[in-house]
C-alpha cells in the first residue's frame, strides 16, 4: 500500500513534459553513439576518396588524422563535460565542507582529493574556499588536498588523453593526480606549518555560519550539465582545433623518434627539467595538449610528458598569486615544492614501469 502511494505522488511530479525531455536525452545519446561509430570510415572516405589523397603521403596522413580526431575529441568532450556537469550538480563547496568537517587527517586527505574532482570549483574561488574550510576546523593538509586535486585532475585533459592515447593513459593520469593530491596534502599536514597561514584567517576560526542549499530537480541537473558544456566547450574549442591541427601536422611530417634522445627514458634529467619548465608556464588543458601529443609521438617518454602536463595544468601561477592573500610565502613555497616533487616522482615512476 505504502509503495502505491509513493508511486502515485511520483507520477504527479513526472508529467508529460519530463518524459519528452528524457526521451530527447536518450535519443540524443543514441545518435551520439552512432555518429561516433562512423567517424573513422567517414574521415577515411573524405580524405582518400573525395579529396583523392594517398594514404602513405605526408598530407594524406595529416588530413585523415585531423578529420578523424577533431570531431572525435569534440564529441567526447561534449559527452564527458555533460556527464561531469550532471555529477557536479550534486556537489557544492558547502557540501564538500560539511562532508570533510570532523574527518581525521589521512582519511580526510583521501576524501578531500576525491571531492576536489567532482566539486565545481574555479581557481578564482581558492581564497574563500580555503578560509571557509580552515575556519570550520578542517586541517590545513586536508584543505590543500582539495585545492591540489581540483585543478590537477582536469576533465578536459582526461578526455583528450583518452581520445589520443586510450583509456589506460587517461586512467593513469586521473589516479596519479589523485595520489599526488592526497600525499602532498598529507605531507604538508605532517609539517605543522599552520603558523604560515595569514593571521587574519586564523582569527576567524569557528565563526562559520551554515549556508542554506537549494534543492534541484532532475531537469535542473540536466540543464546544469548542458550549461557546463556550453561554458567549457565554448571556451576551449578554438584551442582544441588549433591544437589538433598542430598535432596533425606533426603526425604527418616529423620523423618518429626525433625527441627520443632529448626526452626519452634514458635522459633521466628530462623529468625534473619538464616540471621546472612547466610550473611557471600556465595554459589550459586544451592549449597544452598539442605539445604533449607531439612530445609523446616523436619519442618523448610518457612519464616525462605527463609530468610536464601536470606541472602546467595543476600548478598555475594565477592560483598561487591568489593564494598568497591567505598563505605566507613560506607556506606557498612549501605547497608548490611538495606538489612539484610529487609530479617529478610520478614522472620517474612511469618512465620506470611503462
Amino acid at each position, binding site marked *: 500500500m505504502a509503495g502505491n502511494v509513493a508511486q502515485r505522488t511520483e507520477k504527479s511530479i513526472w508529467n508529460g513534459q519530463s518524459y519528452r525531455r528524457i526521451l530527447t536525452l536518450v535519443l540524443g545519446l543514441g545518435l551520439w553513439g552512432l555518429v561516433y561509430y562512423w567517424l573513422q570510415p567517414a574521415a577515411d572516405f573524405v580524405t582518400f576518396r573525395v579529396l583523392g589523397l594517398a594514404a602513405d603521403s605526408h598530407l594524406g596522413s595529416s588530413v585523415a588524422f585531423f578529420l578523424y580526431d577533431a570531431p572525435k575529441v569534440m564529441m567526447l568532450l561534449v559527452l564527458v563535460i555533460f556527464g561531469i556537469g550532471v555529477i557536479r550538480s550534486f556537489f*557544492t*563547496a*558547502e557540501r564538500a*565542507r560539511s562532508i570533510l568537517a570532523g574527518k581525521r587527517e589521512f582519511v580526510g586527505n583521501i576524501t578531500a582529493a576525491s571531492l576536489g574532482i567532482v566539486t*565545481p*570549483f*574555479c581557481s*578564482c*574561488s581558492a*581564497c*574563500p*574556499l580555503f*578560509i*571557509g574550510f580552515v575556519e570550520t576546523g578542517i586541517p590545513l593538509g586536508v584543505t590543500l588536498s582539495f585545492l591540489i586535486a581540483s585543478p590537477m585532475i582536469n576533465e578536459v585533459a582526461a578526455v583528450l588523453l583518452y581520445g589520443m592515447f586510450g583509456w589506460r593513459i587517461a586512467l593513469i593520469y586521473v589516479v596519479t593526480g589523485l595520489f599526488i593530491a592526497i600525499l602532498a596534502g598529507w605531507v604538508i599536514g605532517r609539517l605543522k606549518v599552520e603558523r604560515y597561514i595569514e593571521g*587574519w584567517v586564523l582569527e*576567524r576560526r569557528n565563526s*562559520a*555560519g*551554515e*549556508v542554506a542549499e537549494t534543492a534541484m530537480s532532475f531537469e535542473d541537473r540536466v540543464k546544469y550539465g548542458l550549461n557546463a558544456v556550453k561554458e567549457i566547450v565554448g571556451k576551449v574549442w578554438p584551442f582544441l582545433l588549433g591544437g589538433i591541427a598542430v598535432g596533425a601536422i606533426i603526425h604527418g611530417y616529423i620523423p618518429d623518434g626525433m625527441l627520443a634522445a632529448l626526452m626519452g627514458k634514458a635522459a633521466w634529467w628530462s623529468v625534473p627539467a619538464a616540471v621546472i619548465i612547466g610550473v611557471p608556464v600556465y595554459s589550459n588543458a586544451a592549449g597544452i595538449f598539442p605539445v604533449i601529443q607531439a612530445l609523446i609521438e616523436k619519442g618523448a617518454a610518457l612519464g616525462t610528458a605527463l609530468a610536464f602536463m601536470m606541472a602546467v595544468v595543476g600548478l598555475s601561477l594565477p592560483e598561487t598569486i591568489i593564494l598568497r*592573500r*591567505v598563505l605566507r610565502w613560506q607556506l606557498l613555497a612549501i605547497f608548490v615544492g611538495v606538489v612539484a616533487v610529487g609530479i617529478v616522482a610520478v614522472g620517474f615512476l612511469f618512465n620506470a614501469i611503462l
Partner: protein
Amino acid sequence: MALEANIEHVHDMKKIMAYPILSTPALVINEKLACSGKVPSADEVRAYITSALAQ
C-alpha cells in the same frame, strides 16, 4: 523593477569573507547572502530581490 538601490562591487577578500561564502561570485542583498558560486539569471535575481524585500 523600479527600485532605489545602492549597488557595490566588493573586491576586498576580508570584506567578502564577512559573509558565509565558499565560492565566488556571490550576491548579497541587504547584508544577507542571496547566492554564491554562480552567475544567477535575471529571473533568479528578481526572485532574490522580491524575497529580500518581503522580509
